[in-house]
Each structure stands twice: as structure tokens, then as C-alpha cells.
């Protein structure tokens, strides 16, 4: 039993299919771990009974020989995915108590593949944040500790999704990435985080933040696990007009394919002034690993990189200001009664939305206003096209691009929350992929001097997640990163 939490998903599927372990055993181990790691504040709505029921079903499926590819694997879900009959809040006061009557496409595909739902995971309110501190439930905490022992941010917005996988309270989890919300917390927590190509996974049933940027993706401990769950999540959905009608290969087949002869781009623009030496060091390390694995390293230029962050902070809030208009207290969620309709809106939204969400609604409303639209939103869309063109021409020359995932390792809780601009700078390496709609993956590459995980990011052309998996697994093989956070569930650490 003691090894249950140490298994990767790929190993667990094998043991389950060999009847060496049962899903209910595995699930119970994770339920215990949820309890022992509860101080990390990862689960906002645990679904223990559902988990047990699903685990039993999985065991029956194995017995009947009808087990799906994820059968019996305990999985946590970011509280941004609507889950039928289970509270879904987007970690916002305005949706506290909201229980959908429907299941998001991505999660229902996971359950259909046999996945076991452990519960809903903490995140920044409406996925707006880079530290999980804007959550109405308080921050998810990073299971890793700095040498001085201060509590660290798990990153955000999918902080709970990253922390739970690192801490051993979920075997895998799903999150969403609008500007780095999967890759940044994955890097902070030392796990693998994949942001797929825009349109690869259906957005249907995911509480929208910025529709043209949002994309669901998995958190796992290995690249192989990422390919396993991603194959179940991806696919065209007629209920999402932006979902791509592109066939989904079995990504598990490509994970260990060789990178020999592949061309890997290193973008000069990602050398930022004042960037941590440790980040530069790990980036160089990644470069030499890939060289050793037989890849060719190519220096490339992505000239519009420096405009990505300001461009993102126009487009994302603009879309958010409109997407969040539906939380008006009229049909569902929390309402604060008042004399007139307008007063009811004001009172409801003032009470229901936190400070960061209100800030972004205001920025977005401003950016779309008459007289400012051309200068902000329209200009940002033009810049966005240029950023996309940068990547298009780069991928004519290289198969993947290697960058750091974040400019720093995990920071202390409370360190940046009062300074939004510094917080936004965290997304500097991750935002371009969302603007361009290309896939990106963060893979753990080593530890900082403080003993904190550092991640490397790989980017590829649209719908070439297969290349991400093969390059990421080459790094994984050489990095030999071992998951050992101080605050993980007992047997993991």
C-alpha cells in the first residue's frame, strides 16, 4: 500500500489491469492523502462519495474487461470546470453554492474514460491571478518549502491543480491556461503541465475567463502521464464553435520517440534583463541536454515578444469584462437585493467579485469603450497577429522552441499580491503561446539553490503536441527530476 501514491498514472493503469491493485485501494490512498495534506488548501469541494463510487465502477470495468484508458485513476478538477451535481464556483463569491446541472465536455470525456473524480481544486477567482491568492477560499499552498520555511505560492491560476499532483493528493489533475495558468504553477510545483493548442480541447462547460485564450490541459508527474490523459481530453466538440476538427492521435505512442535530428529554437528575446541567474542556468542546461540527445539547437528571433504581455493584458480583460457580465444576480449565483435593478447589479457584483476580478473588468470595460477601442483592443489584436506570425515563421525553421517557463521560482505567499504589475510579469514567458494559440508544456528540470523546482517550457506549432511530448520526455529523461516536496503526503516525501 505504501507505494500507491508513488505510482505514475501509466504504472497505475498497468497494475490495475494486472489486478495487482484495485481502484478502490488506490482511490482510498488518495482520499487519505487529501486529508493529510489539507493544510495546503488544494480541494475546495472534495467529492469523496463520488470518488468511491467511480472507483468501484472502475474495478467492475477491469473485471469485465471493459476498462477505459483512465479507468480507476484518481483525478482532481479545477473548480472552473462545471461538474454535474457538484458545486462549481470558479472560486468566486458570486458563484458560491452554484451547482451545475451539466458536465463540461472535457471532464465528461475523462469520466467516460474511467477517471475517478476526487474533487474540485482551488484556483484564482475566475482564473484571474498568478498565485492562487485571489480565490475566495484562500490560496492553495505549494508543497515545496524554501530553506527558510516560508509558505510558498503554488502559482496560479491553477494552483490547486498543480499543488495536489505535487503533494500526492491527486494522481493527475486538470486545469485551464489563459496566459500561463497551467505552465506557471506546474513549474512552481515541479510537475508537468500542458497547455494544448487552442481548439484542441472543448471549452464547453468551462467557466469562461477570456474565450480566445482559454484552453484546458492536464497536470501530471510525468510526460507519459500527460500524453495519457491528454489523449482522453482532446477532440472536436460540436458544442464549441472554436473547437478544431482535427483528429487526435494516441499521444502515448509518441512520448519516447527520439529527438535526434529535431531542430530546437532558442529565442533571444527571452533573455530578460534582471532574470534570475538560476533561470539562465537551467535554460542552458536544457539546451545542452537536448544537444546530447541529438537535437540541433538553432538561435531564433521572436521580435514581438516584448509586446506580448501588454497585448495580453488588454485582450484578456476585454473578453473577461464581457464574459463576466452574466454574473448579475438575476438567474443564479449570489444576489444582493436592492431597490432598483441597477442598484441590485452594483451591490451583487461589488459583493460577489474580488478585487483582482473587479480590476480586470474595469480594465476590459475601459479598453472596449467608444473612443478607446481602436487605441487599445484593435491595436492589441494587430500586435497579436504579429506575435502569431513570429511563431509561424519560427516553426518553418524549427520543430520546437525551448524557453524557461517562469522568470523566477515559486515566491512567498503575500509577496506580490499587493502589486499587480509585478504579479503580471510572472506570465511573461507563457503569455505568447496563448496569444498565438500554440501548444506549450512545462517540464520540471531541476532545483534552485533554495531547493525549489524550476521548469522549462517547450512550444510547438499548432496541433503538434506530439513534438512537445517527445522533446519534453528527452528533458525528463536527462533531468532525472524526483518529486520530493517537503509538505507532500507522507509516503511521497
Amino acid at each position, binding site marked *: 500500500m505504501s507505494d500507491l501514491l508513488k505510482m505514475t498514472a501509466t504504472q497505475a493503469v498497468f497494475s490495475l489491469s494486472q489486478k495487482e491493485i484495485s481502484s478502490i485501494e488506490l482511490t482510498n490512498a488518495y482520499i487519505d492523502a487529501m486529508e493529510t495534506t489539507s493544510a495546503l488548501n488544494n480541494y475546495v469541494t472534495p467529492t469523496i462519495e463520488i470518488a468511491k463510487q467511480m472507483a468501484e465502477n472502475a474495478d467492475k470495468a477491469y473485471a469485465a474487461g471493459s476498462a477505459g484508458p483512465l479507468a480507476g485513476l484518481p483525478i482532481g478538477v479545477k473548480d472552473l470546470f462545471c461538474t454535474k451535481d457538484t458545486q462549481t464556483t470558479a472560486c468566486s463569491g458570486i458563484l458560491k453554492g452554484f451547482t451545475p446541472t451539466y458536465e463540461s465536455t472535457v471532464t465528461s470525456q475523462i469520466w467516460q474514460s474511467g477517471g475517478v473524480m476526487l474533487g474540485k481544486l482551488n484556483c484564482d477567482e475566475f482564473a484571474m491571478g498568478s498565485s492562487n491568492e485571489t480565490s475566495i477560499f484562500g490560496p492553495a499552498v505549494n508543497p515545496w518549502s524554501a530553506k527558510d520555511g516560508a509558505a510558498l505560492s503554488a502559482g496560479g491560476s491553477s494552483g490547486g491543480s498543480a499543488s495536489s499532483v505535487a503533494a500526492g493528493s491527486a494522481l493527475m489533475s486538470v486545469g485551464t491556461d489563459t496566459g500561463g495558468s497551467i505552465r506557471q504553477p506546474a513549474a512552481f510545483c515541479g510537475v508537468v503541465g500542458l497547455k494544448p493548442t487552442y481548439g484542441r480541447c472543448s471549452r464547453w462547460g468551462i467557466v469562461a475567463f477570456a474565450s480566445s485564450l482559454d484552453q484546458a490541459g492536464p497536470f501530471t508527474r510525468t510526460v507519459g502521464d500527460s500524453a495519457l490523459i491528454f489523449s482522453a481530453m482532446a477532440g472536436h466538440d460540436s458544442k464549441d464553435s*472554436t473547437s478544431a476538427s482535427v483528429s487526435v492521435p494516441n499521444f502515448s505512442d509518441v512520448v519516447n520517440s527520439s529527438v535526434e535530428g529535431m531542430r530546437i529554437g532558442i529565442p533571444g528575446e527571452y533573455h530578460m534583463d534582471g532574470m534570475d541567474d538560476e533561470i539562465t542556468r537551467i535554460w542552458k542546461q536544457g539546451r545542452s541536454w537536448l544537444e546530447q540527445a541529438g537535437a540541433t539547437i538553432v538561435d531564433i528571433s521572436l521580435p514581438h515578444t516584448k509586446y506580448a504581455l501588454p497585448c495580453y493584458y488588454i485582450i484578456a480583460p476585454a473578453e473577461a469584462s464581457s464574459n463576466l457580465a452574466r454574473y448579475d444576480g438575476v438567474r443564479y449565483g449570489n444576489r444582493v437585493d436592492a431597490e432598483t435593478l*441597477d442598484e441590485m447589479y452594483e451591490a451583487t457584483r461589488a459583493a460577489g467579485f474580488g478585487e483582482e476580478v473587479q480590476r480586470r473588468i474595469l480594465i476590459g470595460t475601459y479598453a472596449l469603450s467608444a473612443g478607446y477601442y481602436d487605441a487599445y483592443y484593435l491595436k492589441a489584436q494587430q500586435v497579436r497577429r504579429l506575435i502569431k506570425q513570429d511563431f509561424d515563421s519560427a516553426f518553418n525553421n524549427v520543430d520546437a522552441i525551448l524557453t524557461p517557463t517562469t522568470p523566477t521560482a515559486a515566491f512567498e505567499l503575500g509577496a506580490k499580491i499587493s502589486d499587480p504589475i509585478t504579479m503580471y510579469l510572472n506570465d511573461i514567458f507563457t503569455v505568447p503561446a496563448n496569444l498565438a494559440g500554440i501548444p506549450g508544456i512545462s517540464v520540471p528540470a531541476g532545483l534552485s539553490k533554495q531547493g525549489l523546482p524550476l521548469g522549462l517550457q517547450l512550444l510547438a506549432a499548432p496541433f503538434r503536441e506530439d513534438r512537445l511530448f517527445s522533446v519534453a520526455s528527452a528533458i525528463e529523461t536527462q533531468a532525472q527530476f524526483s518529486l520530493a516536496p517537503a509538505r507532500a503526503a507522507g509516503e511521497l516525501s
Partner: protein
Amino acid sequence: MSALVSGRTGDWEIVIGMEVHAQVVSNAKLFSGSSAVFGASPNHHVSLVDAAMPGMLPVINAECVKQAVITGLGLNAKINKFSVFDRKNYFYADLPQGYQISQFKHPIVGEGEVQIELADGSSHIIGVERLHLEQDAGKSLHDQHPSKSYIDLNRSGVALMEIVSKPEMHSAEQAAAYIKKLRSILRYLGTCDGNMEEGSLRADVNVSVRKPGEPLGTRTETKNLNSVRFIMQTIEYEVQRQIELIEDGGAVTQETRLFDTTTGMTRTMRGKEDAHDYRYFPDPDLLPLNFDDAFIADLKKDMPELPDEIKSRMVTEYGLSSYDANVLTEEKEVAAFYELASAGRDRKITANWMSVELFGALNKAGIDLAQSPVSPEQLGGLVDLISDGSISGKIAKEVFAEMFETGKDAKQVVDEKGLKQVSDEGAIISMIDKVLASNQDKVDEYRSGKDKLFGFFVGQVMKASKGQANPGMVNQILKQKLDT
């Protein structure tokens, strides 16, 4: 040409533009699978998308796109193969998403035109600026509870076509003719049922006045007019109000107004300073609409004949007057009834009988054509009896009244009542002889030159035959007898 209105300071020209919202005929809403049928109990045609539940996404209904393109073709308009859906952002309790999905910069249909005819026989082309697709909002019910408003989302998300005219109308009469013609075209096309009472067709009317030759005046927009009469009343009221305002030294303010159906007046709804900033931007949940020439050609192939085409066919092929043709083509159902009733027989006589007798009777009974007790075939049967001389026009009226009353065929009525026209020459001669014999004095007067008495003799003979004598034969034989 434009009708001028005289004020104290001289003549004024009226400028009118109209935005018409036409509900698209389709089974489902514009972006969800819910039924778009009118009349369900509140909130029974509402999907998760219509209620804007978290995470719900719109998916375009291809049928509504087709309907918009067909309408564009019917308005001789430019069809835009590339168009974009935008969000129009504003808060209201019956607008669940907090925005309406509409088309702003790139509408599906561009410039077109509508031809109108006025009572004086003049014909005008009114330009159409654009047509775009958009969602309808839900309905707020303020009279169900003393302090609360209720919301019915059945209409939320139903597809509308907004058809924007150019400011090219210059009188209430033109505006009325425009909306009637537009309604007629939509109904022929089957893209909108045109039911103004149920709100399937409603208009926002922009009115301004200016001195002839001067630049456009400041306009007001009066919202949500759902009858031709209200449109005309609004224009008449606004024109008077604006002229008086300017002539008294004031100025018209650009604003949105509401029409009060009880007083026939308009009043301010919101001024320019309260105008919403809709913060339009392309809806990131939807891809731009793209289709090819083949898609348009396919729809073009199945286009029904439109009122203008039918009308010109009726004038050139059937020999109808332009007026009759207009009356018979305004409504799709009327034209179809007429085509059936007149097929293979005298088109003109059928047209007369339809527009005078049938419409008169329907009007009097307060029912519409769909409920007519006389079918097209039955009306045709009556025309046949007139044409072959079986009954006179006068008798036909009596027969028609009976048909309308009982729903019987013309022939059956004639047979039962013994109304068949007397065309037996011997019988007619004997009736004529009797009349002449008992009116010898008048015969003498006629023969001494008083020609006008001819009509008197015809009348007497017809009276004697109880109207059944064949009038043509009576005329002919009388003439022979009197003139020899």
C-alpha cells in the same frame, strides 16, 4: 419628389429612415437548439445557452443563416460571403449574457432596395443599407407582482434580422408603403411570418425635418412600433413636434423616444447623454461566417416568385390593371388564391370578383382569406357560369351571397334556385313583345328620336324575367324590334 409640409416659416422636408426587426422563421433559436415557436408558457423554451449558464457557448444555426441570405436575395442586396458576429454589451434583466450577439462591422447582407407604390400611382425605390442577424432578448413582465418583475426567456436567443433602410422616405405614406412592402416580401420568401401583433415584425423609426436643400436635421428614434398605423402616427406626431420646436426657436435633441398607443404621442425614453456605450467587439466564442458562391447559388435556385415579378406578370400576361395587380399581390395568400381561382378562365373577371365581392364579404364578416367559405375553385366555378352566359352578373351576385353563406358550389346554387339565365330566343322575344305592347306610348317616343328610352325597355324586360334573361340577347333583339 417629396411631400413638403408647410410651417409658419415656410416649407419643411421630412426625412425618414427605418430599422426593422424581423423574427426569422426557423425551428430553433439563432445559437441554441431551443424551440423558437411563439406562445409557449413562460420559460419553457429555454436552454442552458439561452439562460447564459456558466461555460455555455453559442453555436450558429445554419438555417437562420440561409434565411438571412434568402432575404438578402429578395431585397436585391449584396450578399457578404464573410461576416462577423459581435457582442453588444449592456446590462438588462432580460438579457442573460449581459450582451446581445449581433453583427456590427461586417453584416451578412449589404446594400439592397425595396420598390414601393403609392396611391397616386407613383413608384419609388427605397434603399436598404444592410441586413444583419442578431439575437432577441427575453421579456420583462412588470405587471405580475406589486414589487417584482418577472422574466420570460422564451424569446431570449431567437433569431432576428435587423433590416436598416437608408433615410430615403419623405412621408408617413411612404413609410407605410415601405413596411408593408417589406413585410410582403418577407412573407413571400417565408423568412419572417410578418406578424406585427405578436412582435415578429417591429420597427424603430428615425425622423428628422429640414428646409429643402439644407443638410439633414437632428433625428429622433422612436422604438418598437408594431403596427403600420403606429408608424404613421409616430411620423406625423414627430414631424409636427419637431417643426413647432424649431419654429419656436428651439432645437431637436437627438434622443430615443417611445410611442404611447393611447395618446398617439411620443415621449423621451433616454437622451443622448444616457445612450449606452455598447462596447462592440467580435464574439470570441464564434468564428466569422464564411460561405461560397455555390451556397448562395443553391438558395437562389429555390427562390419563390416575389410580388413585383408576379405583379408584372399579372399586368402583361393577364391584362390586369396595375391597381388590381397590386391588391392581389400584397399578400402571398391572396396571390395564391387568385392564381388558383383564375387558372384556365377569364383572369380579369376573376380579379374583379375577388377584389370586389369576395374581399367585401370577408371584410363584412370580419374574417380573413384563410377562413373564406368560398374556395378558389368555387369562385372559379362562379366565373365559369358568368363567362358561358349561364348567369348574368347581377344574378351572380345573388349566387355568390348564397355560396358565401352556405359554402355550396355556384352550379348547385343556380340549379337549386332555378337562377339559370334565360337564353331561349323565343322566350325572350315573347317577353319583349309583351313589354312593347304595354308601353306603346314609349315606343312611339323612342321612334320619334328619344334614344334614351332604350334603357327603360331593357329594364322592363329584365324585370319581367326576374333578372334571368340573357342581357346580351335582350339588347340585341330589342334593338332589332324597335329600329325596324
